[in-house]
Structures are given as structure tokens and as C-alpha cells.
């Protein structure tokens, strides 16, 4: 069902995410908005995977069947339809649907469902036959955009719902290198999420035994590694050129390493680098002009280096200075 959720949303969005394409008037109400609303809001719990309260809403047949307690739709009588009743309960009511920690349908979505039920709740009724008032017609126009915004294309929540085949296809170009490196460096290399292609690499469990030769094995992944943690590793400036080619890097951490000014010079072109930690590394104040050229730098850590003072003067985004010794508060200070 997950694949279907997404492809349906895409089908409704010829202009891409955000485009508000109203379903054509000739389409049935069920296909035009009832099924899309239920799929976006309810099918996660009432669908092929889970049937909470033994109710499924992902097909016409399931919707009509209702739950073990009976039908959830009373044709022509929205107020007596359990489905509508549940939607309209106060948010803090335990029986409110969808449960309060889930994204909630907009008032217009509920109104559309009510209207459809009021007009008979059939599978055949066309959108045009419902005589929607202007406000609901307008809402319908924006519905596809709103449902898409719920799971914007590429947003984390949406991505993990992609199916396995799509994930493997996306990862195919690097999969064999990733697998080999995962065997070689247990625990160090990982995809950022279950369905993404971005990679994180850390030497946290490897320490000083991980040096320039080992880092060079990551070269084929240079477009994919977004977080690279080399802290306490044995990597040196001999890897500067290679590090400068990791163009996807958002975070580079190299505390307690021998990396120095040549590496910083090589990082200058990195377009996405936001967080750079060179605490207790070999950088000096000579690196400050280069550091100022990193376009997206948000945090920079240079503690215990010869660069810190100059970087502070240059206004680079360092944290607050290290802790001064503070006097202990008076043992007993009643106000």
C-alpha cells in the first residue's frame, strides 16, 4: 500500500509537489477525493498491513464492509456514520480518529467526506453531481497539494515508505563497495536512513589504526558520504586532496588528529559543509582566510589549536570560549 500511496499522490500532481491540480469533474468522488483522503490519513492503520478495530479502508469493498461492529458509513446520513462521528470527536477524546498524535485532516477534508455521504456515498457519484458549494470546490482544488504536503516528495517521513526495490535500485551503484567496507570496518559505515543513499562514516570504533590508506578505500563513496567522523584516527594531511573531493559532506569531524592547514585549504570548495570540527588538530591561524570561504559553515570547533584566537577575531562561528573556573555557590543561600 505504501507504494500506492505515493504513486497515487504523484499521479494527482502532474506539476510536481505543491501544484494544485483539481481532479477532473468527470472523475468519481470516490476516486477523486474519498480514497485519496482515506489513503493519506487512515490506511496506515486501516489497510492491508494493519486493520485496527478490524477495519480496513483501502479498497471500496473494505470500506463498504466496515468493521466487525458493522458498517462505518450510513448512506445519506453522515451524522449517523461511525466514520464521520469518529472524525468529528474532540481531539482529546480517546476515540477520535485519526489518533491525536497523527496528522489530522483539514476541516474541508471532513466536510468533503460528509458531503459525499450525504449525497448517497456511492462509488459511482461524480464530483460534479455533488453540487459542492464554492468553498468546498476551492478546497478540492487544493486537496492534492495539501495531501502532498503531508508527505512531501523526498521528505523523511515519505522516503522510508518507499519499497525495497526502489531502495536497492537507488543504492545499486555503491552497494558492493558499501558492503565490502562494512565487512572491513565493522560498525563504521552506515546509510543515513533505511531508505536513503546518503552515508555516514565514523572511526569512533577504529581509532588510530584507521589512517590515510584506509581512508582512500572510501574514495568511490565520495559523492555519498554526508557525515565523516575521523576524530582520533590516524588520518593525516596526505589525505587532504581526497577529503576535498567528498563534495556531499555536511559534517566533517577530525578532533585529535594531525590534520592541519593543507587539509583546510583542500576543503574550501566543499559546497555543503556546515559543521567542521578540528578541535586539537594541527590547524593554525594560516587557515582562517580559507575557513572564511566555506559558504555554508554554521559551526566550527577549533579548541586547543593555534587557530582559535585568530578565528574568533575573524568572527567565525565558534562556540563560547572554554569554561572559566566558577566559584561554588554559597552552601546555603535562603532568599
Amino acid at each position, binding site marked *: 500500500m505504501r507504494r500506492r500511496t505515493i504513486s497515487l499522490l504523484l499521479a494527482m500532481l502532474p506539476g510536481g509537489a505543491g501544484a494544485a491540480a483539481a481532479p477532473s469533474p468527470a472523475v468519481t468522488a470516490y476516486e477523486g477525493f474519498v480514497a485519496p483522503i482515506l489513503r493519506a490519513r487512515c490506511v496506515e492503520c486501516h489497510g492491508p498491513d494493519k486493520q485496527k478495530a478490524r477495519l480496513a479502508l483501502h479498497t471500496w469493498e473494505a470500506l463498504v464492509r466496515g468493521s466487525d461492529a458493522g458498517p462505518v458509513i450510513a448512506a445519506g446520513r453522515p451524522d449517523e456514520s461511525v466514520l464521520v462521528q469518529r472524525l468529528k470527536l474532540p481531539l482529546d477524546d480517546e476515540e477520535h480518529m485519526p489518533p491525536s498524535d497523527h496528522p489530522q485532516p483539514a476541516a474541508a477534508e471532513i466536510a468533503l467526506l460528509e458531503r459525499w455521504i450525504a449525497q448517497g456515498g456511492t462509488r459511482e457519484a461524480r464530483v460534479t453531481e455533488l453540487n459542492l458549494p464554492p468553498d468546498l470546490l476551492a478546497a478540492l482544488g487544493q486537496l492534492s497539494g495539501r495531501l502532498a504536503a503531508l508527505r512531501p516528495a523526498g521528505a523523511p517521513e515519505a522516503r522510508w515508505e518507499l519499497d525495497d526495490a526502489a531502495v536497492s535500485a537507488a543504492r545499486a551503484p555503491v552497494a558492493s563497495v558499501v558492503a565490502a567496507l562494512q565487512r572491513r570496518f565493522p*560498525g563504521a559505515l552506515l546509510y543515513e536512513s533505511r531508505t536513503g543513499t546518503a552515508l555516514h562514516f565514523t572511526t569512533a570504533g577504529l581509532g588510530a589504526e584507521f589512517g590515510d590508506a584506509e581512508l582512500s578505500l572510501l574514495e568511490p563513496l565520495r559523492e555519498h558520504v554526508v557525515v565523516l567522523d575521523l576524530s582520533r584516527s590516524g588520518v593525516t594531511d596526505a589525505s587532504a586532496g581526497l577529503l576535498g573531493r567528498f563534495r556531499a559532506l555536511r559534517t566533517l569531524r577530525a578532533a585529535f588528529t594531525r590534520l592541519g592547514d593543507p587539509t583546510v585549504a583542500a576543503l574550501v570548495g566543499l559546497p555543503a559543509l556546515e559543521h567542521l570540527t578540528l578541535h586539537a588538530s594541527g590547524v593554525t591561524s594560516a587557515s582562517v582566510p580559507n575557513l572564511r570561504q566555506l559558504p555554508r559553515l554554521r559551526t566550527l570547533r577549533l579548541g586547543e589549536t593555534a587557530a582559535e584566537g585568530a578565528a574568533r577575531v575573524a568572527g567565525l562561528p565558534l562556540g*563560547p570560549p*572554554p569554561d572559566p573556573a566558577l566559584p561554588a555557590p554559597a552552601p546555603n543561600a535562603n*532568599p
Partner: protein
Amino acid sequence: MRDLDGLKRELEHTRLTAVTRRHFLRHCGTGLGALWLATTAGAVDRLGFARAPAEPLAPLPPQFPAKAKRVIYLHMAGAPSQLELFDYKPVLARLDGQDCPPSFLEGKRFAFISGVPKMLGPQFPFHPSGQAGAWISDRLPHFERHIDDVCFVRSMRTDEFNHAPAQLMLHTGSPRFGHPSLGSWVTYGLGTENQNLPGYIVLVSGGKTPDGGKSLWGSGFLPSVYQGVQCRAQGDPVLFLSNPADVSRPERRRVLDAIGDINREQHARHGDPETLTRIAQYELAFRMQVSASEAMDLSRETAAVHARYGTQPGAESFANNCLLARRLAERGVRFIQLYHWGWDSHGASESEALTTGFPKRCLEVDQPIGALLSDLKERGLLEETLVIWGGEFGRTPMRENRNGQEMKFVGRDHHPGAFTVWLAGGGVKPGFSYGATDEMGYNIVENPVEVRDLQATIIRLLGFDHHKLSLPFQGLDQKITGVKPTRIVREIIA
């Protein structure tokens, strides 16, 4: 010494239980211990992944890209008073010494308060601090330096008003024994980056186990490899980790190989996946003999570092544990759980009174917490490390009056209805306060956060939907947040 017959009997017993268990599992689709089976026999769990029993701690990506990669949880056992630290109540200060309004007492149960207690104003002066002007008392000057990195939740509440059940609730989602702790769920879901150290390490200060006992870091119905490993500051970091005096490391290797062969044979015969897990655990212990000792060796830190933390070599102190926590975070440990103790400020004795014991507790934790936050920040780790501080409940705005009598020392009773926790790093909104209590600090008037809401939020920060970090057991999709409606506190996520 056990004789050979004894060992043989034990082996036979194990074989028989394995057979019966297998039989049981084959004939009942779900049942006790069906866990590994469920994840290995193709019946994939809600996360859509199968954990290989031979690599139980291999890292796995979260569902969504996440800021937080690891957790350092600073639990203050006994429940520190929010009214002396973070929840400033000037009205309560004015009403100090007056009778408690009856509306506070109707239908309420207290651990010790009886009759009509008196209101008790804050015992220490408060001031606004940081860019957001968050109010804080004068007890935590080192921590206060980081106030712009911290997110306060002042509207926590829980269902339990005694220590053990409330601690269990906070750590495992249930006041009863037998449920996996948050750290177990997290290591189950994410594994761990450092394959030479446990993924979930517990550090207890002063050798005192909290009231909830070791179940607070238990794995419940998850496989035992996900339980917290308690480490000590002195001697072997993990009990029985080093080889006995007359066993060399190569010899230990040979013993492990032999045991491994037997275990693999067992596995071939009975197909019990727990056997593979056991092999993996022995191997981890062998690797840990080297790496755990290095990680836990505080003498490798400079004198300047020790001065900043206020550590003393060999002490089982909270300060030492904070420094260890930083070392373990640097080494990629997934979940680091610290316990401090002695926060149960009833006022029944000097050592736990608000005016005497309490400030001492503050002194014990303040400097090391400040140093820990500084170090994490300096080393670029705070952005991916979620630090959480809090107790199991809060304390009453009334002064405790055990048996209706004024007590010798000043204290407050247990209060499940309102308390404060703070979070920092790991994708939490910095310099932010969420939720509010009434003028007395008694009831929540804005944005209540249940314990399960906090748990769901932590799990979300680590990249999971708490509904999905679940496991079928005893016919239910078990998850730490249970079955009641749960809300991810999205407002505190950056």
C-alpha cells in the same frame, strides 16, 4: 568444583529444553521466546528489517535521517525538586508558611503528607538567564553557562508516585517489571557503531542502585544482548572481564574457539538462534578485554580535564561517570545511562533536606554536567548526542509534614503531577522552554507532556516512529509507549 556428571546433566537439560522449546515454537505461531524466530523466519517486524542473530549489535540505519545518534541520559534518582532549580514560582514564595488550599488536597494521594500542610516557597534565589531569559536558581552555575543550548520541558507528568514504579515507567514505559528499557529498544533498533564495546552502558554513582533496580536497564522480552551493561570505575570495568591470573590471552582465544565450535554444533542440531547470539556475546567480551579497559581508563585524561570535571581517580562519583560518558560517546557507544542518587528531599533527615543534602547533590552534579556539555560541544559531538536530565517525578509545593507534624528539616513530598526535565543537543530546539505549571507549580496549565510522550519524542529524535520501533510479543505489537494515545512533542524538535 562441579563434577563432570553435573556438567553432563546440565548439557542434557539444555538440549531437552531446546528441543521442547523448538517444538513449542513450531506448533504455536506466537509464544514465549518467539522473538528471534519472528525476525529470522522471514516474518519481518514493523520496521521491515530482520536482525541477524549472529550480529545482534551490528549498526542499522534509522527509519528517517536523524540528528541524534546517541543518548546520554542523566537520571537523578529520588526526584530532584523542580521548584528549587528550574520552575520559578514567586507567588509560592509569597505564600510560604500559609496553609495549603483545600483544592490541592481533595482526592489526591501523597506518599507522606497528611492533614493540611503548609506551602513552601523556593529555598534558593532565582534569576533569568541566557538569551531567552529562562529562570534558574543559583544552584547550578556551571550548567547555567549552557542554558542557551538547553530545552526545558516544565510540564512533565507521570502516573506513578513511588520511586520504583515511577523509575520503571520512565525507563521502560511500564510501572511493572519485564519490559525492555529505552536503551534496549534503541540498541535493538540501531545497534552500535563500536563493535568492541557494548552498545548500552550503565554507570551508577556511589555504587547505589536506584529503587527500580537493574530492571531499569533490563531488556525485558528483547533478547538479553540488548540489556544495559553496568560498568564500574574501579578494577575491571565489567565484572569478570579480565582473564584469571593463570590464563593468557591466546589461551582464552583457544577456549573461545572451542566453545564456539560446540555452540555452532548445537545450533546446527537445534537451530536455536539464541545460540548464535551467545557466540556473538562471547566474542564481544573477548574484544572488550582490550577496548573497554582503554575506554574506561580515566588516567589517560589530562590534569586540566580532571580539574574541569572535578574528577577523582578511582572514585565511583558522578563526576567520574560524566567524564566516562564523554569517552564512551567519543567511542561510538549508542546509549549511555548515568544514575545519580540522593535527590529524595523529604526533609526527614539532614542528608536529604532541601537546605542541606540537596545543595550537596547540586554541587556533585553541576560542575561535571557543565564540563560534559562543554566537551561534547567542543568536540562537535553535541549536535548528534542527545543529553537528557531529569528525575522520575517532581516534588510538592507544600512542605512535607509527616504524620501531620512539622518536621525538623525542610523537605517536599513526591509529586507526579508536575516536574521538569531538560534536553540538549541531538536535534532538540536550543534555548527553548516548553510547557508551564500554575502559580504554585502544582498543576500543569500548558502543554502537558506524559512520560510516553517524552519517550516517543526521544525515539523520533533518533530517527524512528515509536509505533514502528515495536515487536510482536504475547499477541501484541509491543512498544515502549504502550497503547495509550501518545504525542510526539514536535514543538521541541529543532
